[in-house]
């Protein structure tokens, strides 16, 4: 009798992409060979933050030997965008940030392209600038997009033409004004975050070839090959079937390689030199300023609770600094609006969330999509409210956090999650009830806690699909269009397919690298922590389809009832007759009829799809609706840290995290997300893009913009997994890739308060800022400065 298959779901099987990655065999776009015909592109960037383009003179650049073409905004003045079509591929009549692409030079070498770019002469007329989103939202602010009213926009986004507000989301629930009187404690405050960069180690890169036949092929480091195909086809006026986007492994995304960035620029450059591939690879400096960044935020809060610690009312206003183009940013402001309370059950809510144009780099998707930004203030105010009424901060959160079946702020019923379990786990792991002593005199030790929620923020109906195909030896190829960006998507796809088919995990190969829109099954985008859930459901459906086809063939062969058959460890078994039929050969050649009088069955290919069908629209005046989002993932973090009063430097000693992932398909991969995210979140608390008064970036390098190194990462990173199954998740799974860094910064701030008694409302937490706050009356120098510095 066939033995039961060891269940691969829930096992920490090794990564399927591991071997390639440790041997140096894994190919990224820059590693692909395009032959001697390859041309190189260089972008000409705007040196000013806001201005009209008066003239562009490309003659000198074109005259340079080796330059093949120069492309400007005049070549394709159509707009590009996913939610709000607000930008030209190359700036057309106006530039709106330093680093905006104005022209592209194509040449036979990188050196000549770079030289050619220096020879493009652009004359600008400078315009007044807006750098602060709150100032930009005022009626008298200079307009960055005077034509906002004419832009094509998704039906759930509400720009305010005649202003710099590209989105205004309103949330109205209960009666905030009436509730304040019943509050025992009310805390108000303004919290701010600067723009930060994703800083993937691989910079943006794209290669494009435009064939004279009209076919466009783009090789890109992309989280969104299919969305890019759609946007390129629309913007360039090419049939979708003529656009092919190929994306091999990508060297880190974090949202920065979602949607579309330089890919359309490179496509236009390729159009100018038809038949030859053109490669553009961003320099690290360009990566910092020309590609997307996380939005800045100015957030005003007023939150109140009663004497027992029950939250009664919350009023928030979020001003996201969306940067020069808000194609993606509008949906971040919207997500921040419909989740504006954070993970709390509050009866009376007034929320306004704005995305505001500024003359800074393009604010776009970044791991957490608006949630790290709003939790920075929310989670610090929760600590202050708890202190006002004399309640432990962990207990305050247990009391108020969202629970299963709560009617949350949008009117949606909260799906099943267990946030109190997450709080308990991190409190336990960090030793919440025990006082920890500083390691030395002059050091201050503190602990902090913070919780979070986040829903996948996306259109209501993003789809996934998958194909499962058998080979002669019953090995299986699983096809998906989702991208392996380091999170382990291919590995869990293999696990799910094996489980649903009933074959050993080792028999399954994921055929998904590179993702190729010409051959891969459709996947909306690798964003929003949605693959394990959405793509996972598609893989499961495809595997079940293949399984069903196999069982139908065998049932007919044995003349048995389909319901009595199963596949166990790669063998079809009958529970009724106890017969067995190995899958080998029959999954391609089928099975013979009695006495070989003909055959039945044939090559087994299963297909499956998933698309959420139940998300509803929200009332534009109140943000109320039946179901705002598909679901939420929740979690908690606690931090133990030490501050040096002589330097203001923080050492993070330990971060403990716990998330409710529904079902961990691969527990160790979940832990790698939790650990990596904790350090990413920690790093984000110390990061910030800086600009001079003209909007010119001044820290666009890893020397001036520090990301966490091996020395900064805490020695102890603890992770716990909570599993409360999600109704429509594969085996109950929901995503966790972004959530892992959402509340790290406020957990650090709360620990910092615990250590120093000082509340820091503005990121980044520089050592200088902390030192000065710890020494409000100045410091006496204990050493003599040399006379000449």
């Amino acid at each position, binding site marked *: 009798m066939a033995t039961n298959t060891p269940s691969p779901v829930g096992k920490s099987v090794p*990564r399927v992409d591991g071997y390639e990655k440790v041997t140096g065999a894994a190919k990224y776009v*820059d590693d692909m060979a395009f032959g001697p015909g390859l041309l190189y592109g260089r972008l000409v960037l705007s040196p000013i933050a806001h201005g009209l383009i008066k003239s562009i003179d490309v003659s000198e650049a074109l005259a340079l030997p080796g330059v093949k073409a120069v492309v400007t905004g005049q070549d394709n003045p159509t707009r590009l965008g996913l939610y709000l079509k607000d930008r030209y591929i190359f700036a057309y009549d106006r530039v709106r940030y330093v680093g905006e692409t104005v022209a592209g030079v194509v040449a036979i070498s990188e050196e000549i392209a770079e030289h050619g770019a220096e020879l493009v002469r652009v004359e600008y007329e400078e315009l007044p600038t807006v750098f602060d989103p709150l100032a930009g939202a005022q009626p008298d602010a200079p307009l960055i997009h005077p034509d906002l009213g004419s832009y094509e926009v998704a039906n759930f986004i509400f720009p305010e033409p005649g202003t710099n507000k590209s989105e205004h989301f309103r949330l109205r629930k209960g009666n905030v004004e009436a509730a304040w009187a019943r509050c025992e404690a009310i805390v108000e405050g303004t919290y701010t975050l600067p723009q930060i960069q994703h800083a993937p180690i691989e910079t943006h890169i794209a290669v494009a070839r435009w064939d004279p036949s009209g076919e466009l092929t783009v090789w890109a480091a992309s989280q969104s090959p299919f969305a890019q195909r759609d946007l390129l086809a629309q913007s360039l006026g090419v049939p979708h079937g003529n656009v092919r986007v190929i994306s091999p492994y990508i060297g880190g995304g974090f949202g920065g390689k979602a949607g579309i960035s330089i890919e359309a620029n490179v496509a236009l450059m390729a159009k100018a030199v038809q038949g030859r591939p053109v490669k553009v690879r961003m320099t690290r400096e360009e990566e910092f300023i020309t590609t997307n960044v996380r939005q800045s935020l100015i957030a005003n809060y007023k939150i109140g609770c009663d004497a027992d610690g029950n939250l009664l009312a919350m009023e928030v206003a979020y001003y996201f600094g969306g940067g020069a183009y808000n194609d993606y940013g509008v949906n971040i402001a919207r997500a921040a609006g419909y989740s504006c309370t954070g993970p709390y059950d509050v009866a009376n809510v007034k929320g306004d969330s704005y995305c505001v144009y500024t003359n800074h780099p393009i604010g776009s998707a970044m791991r957490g999509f608006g949630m790290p930004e709003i939790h920075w203030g929310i989670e610090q105010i929760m600590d202050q409210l708890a202190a006002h009424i004399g309640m432990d901060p962990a207990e305050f959160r247990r009391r108020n956090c969202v629970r299963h079946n709560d009617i949350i702020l949008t009117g949606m019923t909260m799906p099943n999650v267990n946030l109190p379990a997450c709080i308990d786990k991190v409190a336990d792991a960090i030793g919440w009830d025990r006082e920890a002593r500083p390691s030395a005199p002059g050091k201050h030790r503190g602990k902090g806690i913070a919780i979070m929620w986040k829903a996948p923020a996306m259109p209501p109906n993003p789809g996934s699909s998958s194909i499962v195909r058998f080979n002669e030896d019953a090995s299986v190829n699983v096809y998906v269009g989702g991208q392996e960006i380091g999170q382990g998507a291919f590995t869990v796809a293999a696990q799910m397919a094996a489980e649903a088919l009933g074959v050993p995990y080792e028999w399954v190969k994921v055929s998904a690298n590179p993702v190729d829109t010409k051959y891969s099954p459709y996947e909306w985008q690798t964003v929003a922590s949605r693959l394990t859930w959405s793509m996972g459901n598609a893989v499961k459906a495809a595997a079940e389809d293949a399984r069903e086809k196999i069982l139908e063939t065998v049932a007919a062969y044995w003349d048995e009832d389909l319901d009595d058959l199963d596949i166990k460890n790669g063998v079809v078994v009958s529970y009724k007759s106890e017969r067995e039929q190995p899958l080998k050969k029959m999954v391609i050649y089928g099975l013979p009829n009695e006495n070989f009088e003909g055959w039945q069955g044939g090559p087994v290919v299963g297909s499956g799809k998933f698309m959420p069908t139940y998300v509803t629209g929200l009332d534009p005046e109140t943000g109320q609706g039946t179901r705002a989002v598909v679901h939420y993932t929740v979690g908690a973090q606690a931090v133990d840290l030490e501050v040096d009063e002589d330097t203001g430097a923080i050492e993070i000693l330990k971060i403990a995290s716990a998330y409710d992932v529904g079902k961990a398909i691969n527990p160790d991969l979940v832990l790698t997300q939790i650990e990596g995210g904790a350090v990413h979140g920690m790093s984000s608390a110390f990061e910030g893009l800086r600009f001079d008064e003209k909007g010119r970036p001044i820290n666009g390098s890893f020397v001036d913009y520090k990301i966490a190194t091996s020395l900064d990462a805490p020695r102890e990173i603890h992770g716990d997994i909570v599993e409360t199954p999600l109704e429509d998740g594969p085996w109950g799974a929901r995503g966790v890739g972004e959530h892992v860094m959402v509340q790290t910064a406020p957990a650090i701030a709360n620990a910092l308060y615990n250590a120093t008694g000082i509340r820091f409302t503005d990121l980044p937490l520089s050592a200088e800022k902390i030192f000065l706050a710890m020494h409000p009356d100045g410091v006496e120098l204990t050493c003599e400065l040399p006379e000449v510095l």
Partner: protein
Amino acid sequence: MLHEITLTVNGDPYVVAVRSHHTLLQVLREQLGITSPKRGCENGECGACTVIMDGLPVSSCMVLAAEADGANIETAEGLAEEGDLHPLQQAFLDHNAIQCGFCTPGMLMSSKALLDRTPHPSEDEIRHALVGNLCRCTGYVRIVDAVQDVAKES
């Protein structure tokens, strides 16, 4: 101007004509097709292009190719011997010390250079040896654990 240089890469001898201003990274990737050293910043800041040159880890984007004349270069492609993974490669797999994989070859070479010189490093020594190799995905902890495991076993 072209310079003819001789260098050994992963045990194989090469003679290549290189331009004066081209880096070792460019020559490895574009002339020899050895692509595990990655371009992350081309400024010596990220460590993704780390190779071992005559026993020492270097950012190959900061070494002029002409300077590598006569040098012995090791890259991630040369770590496995006859199909057997190097203990560091195996440890990176066992610890799931990989995510997007872009920093991995450089991380492996810095780790190997450390263990070649210091077979039994402390955690501090490992963290210091890897400080020039940026990783945005893993949080470093599993990478440090993987190196420690190999150090214990050797």
